[in-house]
């Protein structure tokens, strides 16, 4: 009791308890975030809870389902198509994350100087990000069309053999990687540009005065100082890559011959084409747990390796 009384700021301790709450800083804070909290609760937390229940049901999303315990999860572990989808998703993520984050660093460094038309270049990098995924998909379908596409035309100009691209089961996944990297790199570049501009000039000056070459300055000063940005981008890109769906949906629809069926696309097929709603929800939960674990590991590594200047 006494401790409680002591914590109270002077001058605010009098009056009706409700007024006290209403005038406290906590209340103002909660009032500001309440609209967001309510929206998140309605559109995220409740569905998350519901899909957990759904994953324990045999439910075709049409008639009321019935509980089947962990049967959906057990079936998942025996499902070789699901296993292949995991393999493809891991391969995609393992290439997409380093390529897009590393590529963004290179682009950001190139854009972080005062040259003519720099605003135009920055805009050019950012435009794909604000272009709708559907539009991007349709454009790439045309660019990569084996007969009428620009890419095969360019190959023919330099005498290289014509490719099937998205229609070749061995190439489609890599085309998707290229397409999504193009589409998402703008975000990474913006983050890196902001981080680059936050590097204190005196550190760079000190390195120069100590006789460090440009390359070693970059390696030993710039890259470590970009650590927090890199960590964020790796975590964020990994989460996005593991949930790849839109680009697949508008281009290959998981094909050809299932070669681009990622985890979430497989989920979509199960839930909305085959009406296995419970099974789809189980896939969503396995993915959710996997993403959670990957993120925890990444953050744990990040905490040990990343240097926070402030």
């Amino acid at each position, binding site marked *: 009791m006494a401790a409680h009384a002591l914590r109270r700021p002077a001058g605010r301790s009098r009056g009706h308890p409700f007024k006290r709450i209403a005038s406290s800083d906590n209340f103002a804070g909660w009032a500001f975030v309440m609209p967001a909290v309510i929206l998140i609760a309605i559109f995220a937390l409740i569905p998350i809870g*519901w899909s957990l229940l759904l994953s324990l049901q045999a*439910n*075709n*999303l049409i008639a009321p389902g019935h509980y089947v315990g962990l049967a959906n999860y057990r079936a998942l572990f025996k499902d070789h198509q699901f296993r292949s989808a995991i393999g493809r998703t891991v391969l995609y993520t393992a290439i997409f994350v380093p390529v897009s984050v590393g590529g963004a660093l290179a682009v950001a460094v190139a854009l972080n100087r005062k040259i003519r038309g720099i605003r135009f270049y920055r805009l050019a990098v950012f435009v794909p990000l604000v272009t709708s995924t559907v539009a991007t998909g349709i454009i790439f379908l045309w660019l990569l*069309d084996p*007969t009428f596409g620009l890419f095969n035309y360019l190959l023919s100009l330099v005498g290289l053999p014509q490719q099937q691209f998205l229609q070749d089961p061995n190439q489609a996944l890599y085309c998707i990687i290229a397409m999504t990297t193009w589409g998402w790199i703008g975000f990474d570049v913006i983050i890196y540009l902001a981080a680059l501009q936050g590097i204190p000039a005196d550190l760079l000056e000190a390195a120069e005065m100590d006789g460090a070459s440009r390359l070693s300055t970059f390696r030993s000063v710039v890259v470590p100082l970009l650590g927090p940005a890199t960590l964020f981008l790796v975590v964020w890109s990994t989460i996005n890559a593991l*949930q*790849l769906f839109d680009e697949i949906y508008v281009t290959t629809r998981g*094909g050809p011959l299932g070669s681009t069926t990622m985890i979430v696309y497989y989920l979509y097929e199960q839930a909305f084409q085959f009406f296995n709603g419970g099974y789809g929800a189980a896939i969503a939960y396995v993915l959710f747990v996997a993403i959670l674990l990957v993120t925890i590991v990444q953050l744990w590594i990040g905490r040990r390796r990343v240097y926070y200047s402030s």
Partner: protein
Amino acid sequence: MKRLVLFLTAGALALAGCGGSSNSNSTSSSGSGTAGGGNVDITLWEGYTETEASAINKLASEFNATHKGITVHVQFYGNNDYALQKVLAAIAGGKPPDISYLYGSWAPNIVANPGIVQLNSLIAQDPSFNWNDFWAAGRRVATVNGKIIGVPALIDNLALVYNKKLFAAAGIAAPTANWTWSEFESAAVKLTNTAHKQFGWAYVNDASEDTVWRYWAMLWQAGGAILTPDGKHAAFNSPAGVKALTLLQTLAQHKSIYLDNGSGNYLGLFTSGHIGMLWTGPWDLANITASKVPYGVQILPGDINHQTISGPDNWVVFNNGSARTKAAWEFLKWLTSPAVDLKWATMTGDLPTRESVTKLPAYKQFVSKYPGVDVWVRNLGNATQSRPVSVLYPKISAVVGEAIQSVLLGRAQPQQALSQAEQQVNGILAAP
């Protein structure tokens, strides 16, 4: 990327009954419908756009003006693809529409839902409705295990559309109604010119139902069947099935098929003279006519017959009490009556859903407004078989889609692909 997972869960939520449907004023006046003696308000949900949207609204106002005591409110529910989820959410929420447009492929999924009105007794009590006047393909898809769950709202089928100019340039006579597969095949090869990026034919190669249903037409033409008569085993792995898939393989090896990745690029390539022939439905007709490409329409080439495949959709009635069911039935009877059906067809270019429409005097105006459309109408008589009306069909379709795709991409031989697909389909059908 996150949206889908959210979508799944949100969909589940809605179906569980928490989703308040976003329908507006007219359904909230549900009390007035059962009040007796007064006006009955009913709601119709549809996903039409452009021409069809204005046509349905026009017809509904015409009905409202001529039928005292019933008022039909037409409501646009957005993309047809999501109609099922919305309707089911509305049933769970206790406020379904009275009538909704639903895809024919959903019929087996909704038949068990107590919210829908089975029309058997209404149809039996009303000889003037003349159920047998609807094209057989439409009736089959609206009937699940003998239960009639809807009235045909749309009926399509596949016919051959060809570019007359390319045919003349290649010195090929126009296709006739007796065209054989070998005539079709040699025309497709002759129309192919790799240097000019010209293809004889186009095939949708995304392994979806779009890939599969064209193949079913060929399977039937060769005398094959999708499933055994009892529906318990796959039957497509037959000499007919292999023959049909071999035709696809041969044309793909000749580079005579433009493989469309599912985005519908084939249409623009046909109208710009890069593709000689299409197997398509009346839905592409408006664009083809508008492009001024000189085209002809013919029924599909055949092997032992010239069967086609049809993809009908339904008007489904939902139970909101007997007064509203009666009013909904009155409206559907009127909407699908031969005279009104012809009006709808003339406004939209959709095929008439009833056979007797072709005998009405004004049918000539419909045909002259949409040159070639009469071939599709006559072709409905060639739609003598339908896909299995089963909740398992989407899984069967996915397996066969991959089999066809593997042959088109040169990854498998027809016999090998079909044997593998047969095994998988039998597994699907045997699962409890």
